[in-house]
């Protein structure tokens, strides 16, 4: 591998190298990325990234949208786990306005967030399988993703871009279907996940394809701003759920899996273990909710919580609050707040500057993908093209989040 770095210093001529456009639209890149690769046969010498193909100016749009409307923008970032994005934004506003949520609401959020983490990780891991030639696991696990989406559908009516929850809690309580579907998911999924692990974890072909592919050291990863499973695969136990607990994560007992090499296999294993931990957290949260006697599903903050539509039509108070919130008559505190949640890809941050108006003065999203995807050329240099594909899918770069 070392000699190829030396070749790089020589004059690039057409005879020596080929240029290969990987993307922007290619089935193996899974999203819209372009990488202009300089190839020596099968070996990647240099990669030049072009991003921004699905840039939608979310930050600029957020400056013209009222606070309760912005959650529709956030779930278009990481659309594989959009509830985490939604809750992250709602928690940012709650932090700004000083809204305290009842424990039950926070546990409900934890259930949804962990479900979406599972949905995201299982998609990523099964796609690593696909890229290394094992389509079975992908098709097999997708039925469970479907079940998670059915739960989301019961709660908010949407599947992919969920816009779940409201500032101050949930739009409505979980109905019985949610609990039965969640129950059957919690019973069925461990078996399927176990089978998926049997298929890949000690599979010789899979291990040969992934071990020592696209590895990065812990120091470099931190310098590149890695967070989430990609950072933990290098051995750094940094997880926002533990270091800066939000939504009552401090009440739960779970472990943070870490890897050692920071290669594709470690990233796969960290995600795999995180799914087990997420199941564990969901079980704990369900137990905790069952112990709580009330049926509260939102905080008592009429100033910020959009009332239920049914109440708006029948109760005068609710109509007044609805009108005030929609017309921007409620007072939003002036201030700056940074809030971050542990998204499926890492630290998903919202930096909100409020000038007291109806809309944010400035809203900046810290998108984990955007920050760590810039290390991609370094990860694939000197490796094979087929490994570059695997590395990209193990980074789980979501173009919606990358381009915002």
């Amino acid at each position, binding site marked *: 591998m070392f000699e190829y770095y030396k070749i790089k210093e020589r004059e690039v001529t057409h005879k020596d190298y080929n240029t290969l456009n990987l993307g922007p639209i290619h089935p193996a890149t899974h999203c819209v990325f372009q990488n202009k690769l300089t190839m020596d046969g099968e070996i990647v010498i240099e990669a030049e990234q072009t991003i921004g193909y699905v840039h939608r100016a979310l*930050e600029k749009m957020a400056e013209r949208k009222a606070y309760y409307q912005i959650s529709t923008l956030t779930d278009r970032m990481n659309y594989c786990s959009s509830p985490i994005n939604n809750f992250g934004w709602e928690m940012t506003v709650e932090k700004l306005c000083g809204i305290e949520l009842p424990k039950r609401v926070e546990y409900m959020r934890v259930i949804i967030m962990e479900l979406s983490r599972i949905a995201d990780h299982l998609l990523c891991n099964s796609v690593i399988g696909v890229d290394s030639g094992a389509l079975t696991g992908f098709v097999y696990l997708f039925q469970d993703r479907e079940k998670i989406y059915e739960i989301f559908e019961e709660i908010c009516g949407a599947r992919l871009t969920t816009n779940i929850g409201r500032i101050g809690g949930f739009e409505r309580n979980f109905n019985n279907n949610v609990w039965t579907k969640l129950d059957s998911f919690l019973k069925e999924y461990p078996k399927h996940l176990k089978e998926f692990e049997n298929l890949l974890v000690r599979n010789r072909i899979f291990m040969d394809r992934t071990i020592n592919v696209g590895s990065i050291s812990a120091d470099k990863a931190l310098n590149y701003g890695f967070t989430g499973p990609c950072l933990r695969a290098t051995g750094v136990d940094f997880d926002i759920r533990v270091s800066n607990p939000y939504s009552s994560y401090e009440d739960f007992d779970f472990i943070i899996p870490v890897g050692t090499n920071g290669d594709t296999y470690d990233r796969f294993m960290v995600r795999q273990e995180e799914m087990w931990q997420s199941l564990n957290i969901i079980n704990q949260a369900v137990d905790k909710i069952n112990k709580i006697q009330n049926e509260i599903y939102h905080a008592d903050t009429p100033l910020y919580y959009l009332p239920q539509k049914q109440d708006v039509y029948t109760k005068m108070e609710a109509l007044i609050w609805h009108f005030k919130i929609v017309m921007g008559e409620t007072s939003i505190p002036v*201030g700056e707040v940074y809030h971050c949640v542990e998204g499926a890809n890492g630290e998903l941050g919202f*930096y909100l500057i409020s000038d007291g108006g109806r809309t944010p003065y400035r809203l900046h999203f810290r998108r984990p993908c955007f920050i760590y995807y810039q290390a991609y050329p370094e990860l694939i240099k000197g490796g094979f093209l087929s490994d570059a594909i695997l590395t990209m899918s193990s980074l789980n770069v979501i173009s919606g989040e990358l381009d915002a």
Partner: protein
Amino acid sequence: MFSIKEELNNNIISKLTIRFGNGILFHELSYDTLCITIDKNIIFDCIDYLYKEETLKYRFLTTLCGIHYLDSEKSIGVIYHLHSLTNNHRIRIKSFTEIENPVFPSITTIFNAANWMERETYDFFGIIFENHPNLKRILNADDINYFPMRKEYPIEDTTRDDKNDNMFGRS
């Protein structure tokens, strides 16, 4: 109450004041986060110091973003969020300058992560980062000739007169 966090905050302020004196213009606590406004000439040294100082170790760049205030003299600025993983402590560093000459030092030599974040800030605010290895647009098309996140560029098409949003928030 004198918590560990407050102790850290005071520690940082005193260390930075000793080291940089008048360069530290202003500091405040906003929602539990220490927010320091510094002179733009000391940005690089200050962040380098925070990175290297053994007791502080701010070795993780969380975000870097631009900001534009229309109605102040030094209207354009850069905001850095730094995180010390050893102390689990976050600080926010701000610096402002005039919009006619929006030049800031690049911190890509300290943090590799700053590379794309600075390109993004250049792309949206037109802030030029000196000594950046590859300062060009990243998310927008290469040939646009304006900086879309600056406040003077409205989100709506200005040539339309059939939409009047004045009664909703900002005009």
